[in-house]
């Protein structure tokens, strides 16, 4: 009998605690996967790319990490990871052969791999030989609304990606991935 009573109490507590599990309106892993796949496809199908041919003037493209202006907390790794996933989805070889587009690692990576700060000081132009002509940047923004007494929260995320011509400051490709996440009940954000 005692055993059954204990079981009943444990069950009750577990159920009650389970209902208190905080919810979140943060960007989910699936959102990142869907976003990067959509943006990679958009870039590949963009006018900027489709107009190019093997005879085009070469483009050398670097990626910059996400400029996060949203309420979402992103680590440096996540900020770089998102752009790496967009770049990684491009068929690198065929882009060069068919479109004369090459991707280079960010200058900071090159400098880091080279070695010490002294080396950079000795040669401040290190990295310029890469001849970067374009850069892909991304900016995340969000609009947050919170329910009465902090009960529930909704975030609209607008994640904008653009490829910028560094000679003219003009975007040659731009697209935005927008989505909304909502959480009701006890919210953890």
């Amino acid at each position, binding site marked *: 009998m005692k055993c059954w009573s204990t079981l009943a109490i444990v069950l009750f507590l577990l*159920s009650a605690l389970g*209902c208190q599990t905080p919810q979140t309106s943060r960007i989910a892993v699936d959102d990142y996967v869907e976003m990067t796949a959509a943006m990679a496809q958009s870039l590949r199908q963009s006018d900027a790319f489709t107009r190019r041919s093997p005879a085009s003037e070469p483009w050398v493209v*670097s990626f910059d990490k996400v400029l996060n202006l949203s309420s979402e907390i992103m680590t440096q790794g996540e900020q770089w990871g998102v752009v790496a996933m967009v770049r990684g989805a491009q068929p690198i070889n065929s882009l060069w052969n068919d479109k004369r587009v090459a991707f280079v690692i960010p200058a900071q990576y090159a400098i880091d791999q080279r070695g010490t700060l002294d080396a950079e000081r000795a040669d401040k*132009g290190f990295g310029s030989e890469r001849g970067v002509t374009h850069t892909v940047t991304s900016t995340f923004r969000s609009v947050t609304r919170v*329910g009465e007494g902090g009960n529930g929260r909704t975030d609209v995320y*607008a994640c*904008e990606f653009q490829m910028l011509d560094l000679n003219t400051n*003009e975007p040659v490709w*731009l697209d935005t991935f927008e989505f909304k996440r909502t*959480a009701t009940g006890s919210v953890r954000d």
Partner: protein
Amino acid sequence: MKTMTSRWMMMLMTAALLLGAVGCKGTDSRRVPVGETTRPELDDKRQLPVSLAEFQEGAANDILQALPTVRGISDTPERATILIGDINNKTSSVSTNDYEYVVSGVRSRLIRAQASRDKLKFVEARRRVENIASKERVATAPAPVAAKGEEIAWGGGSYYVPDYDANSTYGLFMDVYEIRRGKTGLYYMEAQLVSFATNEIVYSYRTETKQVIDR
């Protein structure tokens, strides 16, 4: 005593089952369509995100329709350069970040629209491009003829930021005002294209939305 304990136990078991089956449905975390308005949004006294999205779409479509008649843009052969200007946020509750979302959305829609490509040229903020150019070691030697603009010197080289002709350069500005009376808020939003040469407002799009909190 034993009957009492059994009754308590039965009650606890029933409560646990009920909580498990029904109670936890009170909390939820999911993705919803961007156009859907959620309960937390309705409970919040700030402007509804769907109003912001409607303004984005309305302003972009209206600018595209008005382009053939906007003085200074329609009657010049070259593309007008558009810079994103300041947001004049005079609301008491809504963050300027929210209106940056609106302006960037208008810009994004216009850049993607085929109709604007022959007439408008959007450029990124000078400071941001300078930072990228410096970080990426972009040393652009200016062509002799096009050698106008400001030379930005950095560690290993220099970079030319193109100058824009004031006569064909416009700022996209936004003004927002709020009048609040208790649970009712009136939001006035206006997007403007302003000539850099004359400071004249050559185009404007405005909406007024009234919002009532229903709690």
